[in-house]
């Protein structure tokens, strides 16, 4: 379980996260929704160690991970897929996937090969294109690749930042379905950040609504989805 208490992260004088407390339950999908600039990405970036918080605590599996480097947080079982289909365009598809399991190569040699095959089963399109440079992929394929890169590190918690960004509705559905299946079948814990609140709440178990760096609602997803006044006030539809 991931437990966040009073987390505050600021950039100079701008406070991006202002005393955020929330949890992500094991083997569940928790979604963080909110408008642009609500602090959603900063929340994920602080969890994965890319930003350091000025106050508060992040506890993962009973131990504090504040102050750990990103490369050690991956080793602790938290994989982060940052915003914008973050793959390395100049590397091939296969190299992008293998990059995610480099740190396990010595200790889990056979498992590393197996995890590459698993990704190809999960996203057959990637296998067809495995020798191509990642920069030549479509947006949807790039997102699949970014997720694969994260999954081969064998995470227990997957942080997904706006996987739907800039993708066609059909592709979004495919990716969200896939994440849902992964969570339900393997017990992966997912923390999903989305601006597309409807899609996210449709698949999530629990929803957290952020506005200007603060938590304004923290409820079961279905309840949050049904609350039209919150929706109108914070999401604008």
């Amino acid at each position: 379980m991931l437990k966040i208490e009073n987390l505050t992260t600021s950039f100079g004088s701008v406070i991006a996260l202002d005393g955020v407390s929330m949890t992500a339950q094991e083997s569940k999908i928790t979604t963080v929704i909110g408008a642009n600039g609500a602090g959603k990405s900063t929340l994920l970036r602080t969890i994965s160690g890319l930003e350091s918080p000025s106050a508060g605590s992040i506890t993962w599996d009973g131990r504090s991970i504040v102050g750990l480097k990103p490369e050690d947080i991956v080793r602790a079982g938290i994989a982060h897929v940052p915003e914008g289909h973050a793959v390395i365009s100049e590397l091939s598809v296969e190299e992008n996937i293998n990059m995610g399991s480099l740190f396990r190569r010595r200790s889990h040699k056979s498992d590393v090969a197996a995890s590459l095959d698993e990704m190809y089963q999960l996203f057959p399109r990637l296998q067809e294109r495995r020798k191509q440079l990642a920069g030549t992929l479509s947006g949807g394929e790039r997102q699949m690749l970014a997720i694969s890169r994260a999954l081969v590190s064998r995470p227990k918690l997957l942080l997904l930042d706006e996987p739907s960004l800039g993708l066609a509705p059909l592709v979004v559905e495919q990716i969200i379905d896939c994440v849902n299946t992964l969570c339900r079948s393997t017990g992966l814990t997912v923390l999903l950040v989305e601006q597309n609140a409807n899609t996210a709440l449709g698949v999530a178990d629990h929803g957290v609504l952020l506005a200007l760096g603060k938590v304004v609602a923290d409820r079961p997803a279905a309840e949050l989805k049904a609350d039209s006044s919150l929706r109108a006030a914070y999401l604008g539809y």
Partner: protein
Amino acid sequence: MDTFLAALFSGTSRGAIYALVALGLVIVWRGAGVVNFAQMGQAMFSTYIASTLIQNGNSYWVGFFVALFAGAALGALLDVLVMRPLSNKKKTELLSSESMRAAIPVIASLGILGVLQALAGIIWAAEERGFPAPAAQEGFTVAGSVMPFTSFDVFVISIVLITLTMTTIFFKKTGVGLAMRATALNQEVARLSGIRTNFTRTLSWAISGAASSLAGLLITPTSNLSPNTLDLVLIIGFTAAVVGGLDSPAGAVLGGFIVGLVISFVTFYLSPEDVFISILAVLLIVLIVKPRGILGGKDSRRV
């Protein structure tokens, strides 16, 4: 015809060395984001170490391998002791603009160059000394006539080609090579993938240090050794790297050979005084036609 062959051979042999220098620059530029002006200072230092060992009765090869190792160690040390603390965000907050942060390591590398040259002057005295070649520097004799090609040239070209092949295999086929390329291309994604980027960055400094030490060992038999002899080699190697594309290791190698051949043909057919103006012309033409170098990438990064 003889002049042509002589120019071709000597250009290829010189070009091979410039290719090494350019490769060293490109590896640190891509791996650590620094144009390392101290590179040939490091090479000079390790060549002096080899020279001292050889003068004290050790074999050429002992000096050779110790110098390569010393070059790698010095590169790694500079990264850990100087570059890493300088890139620490918290400490450089005073100079918080992005361009200043990029400029600081470059200025530091100039400082390192000065320190290394002064130290070499103090330890080994600032006068020129010779440095041995492991193979004959007289031209081959074929059917009674002396060819413009020496065994040392053969040695230089083959050892550089072996090094370039090994480097390519290392970067393309090994996990550490992949980690280094990933770090060079996108540090954030690399870290999120679990790659220890501090380590890969130090490793680029070490590999670059070894490559440029090799260049130092190969060029000093024809140019002699003093604290400043390799300055010119750095300038030519830097030109080669820019001509080939500062982002591209293959481009660096290509640039090295191009610049080597240009220098050699100008020396043989025009005069040695025209060498610099002709390199400058090549550099200008390439920068006008392909601003990012012959094999440089399409998107601009950092520049």
